[in-house]
C-alpha cells in the first residue's frame, strides 16, 4: 500500500465508530431513560479512563494514583461553584488548568521512576492529596465533603435536574469532544513518539528524543483530562468528598482500563461501560456479595482475553474474518 494512504488509513474514522457514538447519544435517552444518571457517571468514568489510557496505554506510565488529578479537578470546579460561580463550562476549563498545573509539578517526579517505584509513588501522592483535602477543611469541607455546590443551567438554558437529561447530554458531549481530542493526539506525531517511547525508550533516546520531556507533556495532558472528568462529576452530582482523590478510585479506574484493553481509547470507554453497568446490575441482585462476581469477571478476562475485552473482541473478529 502507498505509505501516505496507509498512515491516513491508520487514523481514519471507521463506520463502527460513527455507529457507536450515535448509539451512545441516542440509546440512553430513548431506551434507558431511567438510567440517565448512571449513564452520566459512566461517561465520566470513561473520560477518566481515557485520561489514564493516554499515559498507561500510549506512553507506558503506570499509575495507581491518577484520582489525585480527578479529585483536584473535582475540587476546583466544586469550590468555584460553592463560592458563587456555578457556570459549568468555565468550571471545566479552570479545573483542566489547575489539574494540568498539578500534573506538571508531579510530572518531574513521575518520569524519573518506573515499575513498582512508580506505582508506589503515584499511590503515595494520591494518599497525600486525600490527607490534604481532609486537613484543609475550610476550603474543602473536610471529610464530610464540600457543601453548597450549585451548578448553573447549562449554557443558561438547561437545568440540571434529578432526571439526568441535562447531566447525560452534558457528560456525553464533553466525553465526545475530549475523545476526539485524545484521538487526534494519539494519531499525531507526538502520539507516535509516545508509542515508540513505550516500546523502547533506549531507541527513542538514540534517535534524539527527549523522552522525559515527551512523557511530561502527555502526563500534563492526561492530568487535565482527569481534571475535567472530576469537574464533570462534581458539577453533575453537586458533591465532592476526599474519596474523589483516593486510592480506591485510582485502582478502580485502572481495573476498568485494563479490563477494556489499554492503548485503544475505545478499550477505556468499553471498560468503563462494562464495569459500571455490571456493578450496578450485579449489586442489584447480590447486594452484599457482588464483589464475588466482579472478581470472577476480572479473573475470566485475564485468563481468556489477556489484551482486555476489546483486544479479545478484535481477536475474535480476526479469526472470524479468516474463516
Amino acid at each position, binding site marked *: 500500500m502507498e505509505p501516505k494512504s496507509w498512515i491516513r488509513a491508520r487514523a481514519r474514522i471507521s463506520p463502527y465508530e460513527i455507529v457507536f457514538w450515535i448509539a451512545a447519544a441516542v440509546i440512553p435517552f430513548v431506551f434507558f431513560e431511567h438510567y440517565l444518571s448512571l449513564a452520566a457517571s459512566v461517561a465520566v468514568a470513561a473520560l477518566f479512563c481515557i485520561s489514564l489510557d493516554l499515559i*498507561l496505554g500510549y506512553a507506558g506510565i*503506570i499509575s495507581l494514583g491518577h484520582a489525585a488529578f480527578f479529585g483536584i479537578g473535582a475540587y476546583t470546579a466544586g469550590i468555584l461553584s460553592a463560592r458563587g460561580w456555578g457556570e459549568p463550562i468555565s468550571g471545566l476549563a479552570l479545573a483542566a488548568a489547575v489539574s494540568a498545573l498539578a500534573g506538571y509539578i508531579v510530572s518531574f*517526579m513521575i518520569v*524519573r*521512576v*518506573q*515499575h*513498582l*517505584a*512508580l*506505582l*508506589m*509513588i503515584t*499511590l*503515595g*501522592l494520591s*494518599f*497525600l492529596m486525600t*490527607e490534604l483535602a481532609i486537613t484543609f477543611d475550610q476550603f474543602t469541607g473536610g471529610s464530610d465533603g464540600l457543601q453548597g455546590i450549585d451548578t448553573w443551567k447549562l449554557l443558561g438554558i438547561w437545568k440540571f435536574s434529578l432526571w439526568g437529561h441535562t447531566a447525560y447530554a452534558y457528560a456525553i458531549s464533553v466525553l465526545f469532544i475530549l475523545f476526539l481530542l485524545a484521538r487526534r493526539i494519539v494519531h499525531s506525531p507526538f502520539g507516535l513518539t509516545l508509542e515508540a517511547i513505550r516500546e523502547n525508550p533506549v531507541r527513542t533516546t538514540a534517535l534524539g528524543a527527549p523522552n522525559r520531556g515527551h512523557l511530561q507533556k502527555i502526563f500534563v495532558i492526561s492530568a487535565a483530562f482527569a481534571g475535567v472528568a472530576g469537574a464533570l462529576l462534581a458539577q453533575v452530582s453537586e458533591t465532592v468528598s476526599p474519596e474523589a482523590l483516593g*486510592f480506591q478510585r485510582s*485502582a478502580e479506574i*485502572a*481495573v476498568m482500563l*485494563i*479490563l477494556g484493553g*489499554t492503548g485503544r481509547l475505545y478499550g477505556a470507554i468499553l471498560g468503563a461501560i462494562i464495569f459500571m453497568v455490571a456493578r450496578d446490575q450485579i449489586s442489584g441482585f447480590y447486594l*452484599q*456479595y*457482588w*464483589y*464475588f462476581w*466482579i*472478581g*470472577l*469477571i*476480572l*479473573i475470566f*478476562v*485475564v*485468563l481468556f482475553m*489477556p489484551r482486555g475485552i476489546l483486544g479479545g473482541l478484535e481477536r475474535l473478529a480476526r479469526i472470524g474474518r479468516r474463516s
Partner: protein
Amino acid sequence: MSTLIAVLFDGLSYGMLLFLLSVGLSVTLGLMNFTNLAHGAFAMLGGYVTYALVELAGWPFLATLPFAFIVTAIIAAGFEVVLFRRIYKSGELNQVLLTIGVVFASYAVAAFFFGTVHHSVELPGYLKGFVEIGALKLPSYRIFLVVVALLITTVLVGVLEYTRFGAMVRAAVDNGKVASGLGLNISVIFALTFALGSGLAGLGGALAINILFIDPNFGFHVLVPVLIVVSIGGLGSIWGSFVAAAALGIFDVVGKFLFPEVGAFLIYLFMVVILFFRPNGLFARR
C-alpha cells in the same frame, strides 16, 4: 526517658507486624517477579484459620499458628497451579487485574462465611497485659511479635541463602532456562516458593488479628502498608523488608507521638521521598 523507650518499642513492634505481613510478598513479588496484590487475601485466610480454630474449635492460640501457615500455603499452592502460573509471563497489568479479582472474590467469600463483623481471638494469659521493667511498661503481645519476627527472619534468611532449596529458587528465578536444563523442576519450585510466601502471609494475618482484627476487608486494608514495606525494603530482600518495616513502624509511631497533627502524612511522604531517590528500594537484590 522510659516514655521514649516505650514509644520506640511500640514503633518497632508495629514495624514487626508490618514485616510479618509483608515478608511473604517480598518473596513472591521480589523473587518470582509476580505482582501479587492478592497477598493480603492470603493473610486474611490465615487470620480466619486462626480465628476459626481458637474461637470455634477451642484451640490455644499458639497451636493454631502453624496451621495458619500450612493451610494458607496449601490453598495458595492450589491457586498457583490453577490460576497464577498461567500469567507469570502476561505482564504486570494482567497480574494486577487477576490478583485484584481474587481479592474481590475473597472479600465476598469471607463475608459469606464469617459475616461482615470484625473478629478477634482470645489470647492466653501470658500474652495479655504488659510486662513491667522498672518504670517501663511493655505490652506482652508486642514483645511476642518482635520475637516471632526475629525468628522468622533468621529462618527465612537461612532457608533462602544457605539451603539447597534456596539455591534452587534463586537459580530458577535468575534463569529459568538454565535451571531447567540442570534438571530442576521449575514449576514445582515456583509453586513451593509461592506457597512459602503466601504461608508467611497467612502466619502474618494470624498474628495481626490481635492488633488489626480481622474482617472481610482485611485483604484490601493491609495491601497498601505491605506494598510500602516491600517497595521501600527492596524487592526480594528479606533483610530489606525487615529493616524497612522496622524503620517505617518507628517512623510512623514516633512521628505520630511527636507531631500527631501531621502523622498520617509522614508515612506517605517518607515513602515518596525514599522511592524517588532509591527507586529500587533501600536494599535492592539486583
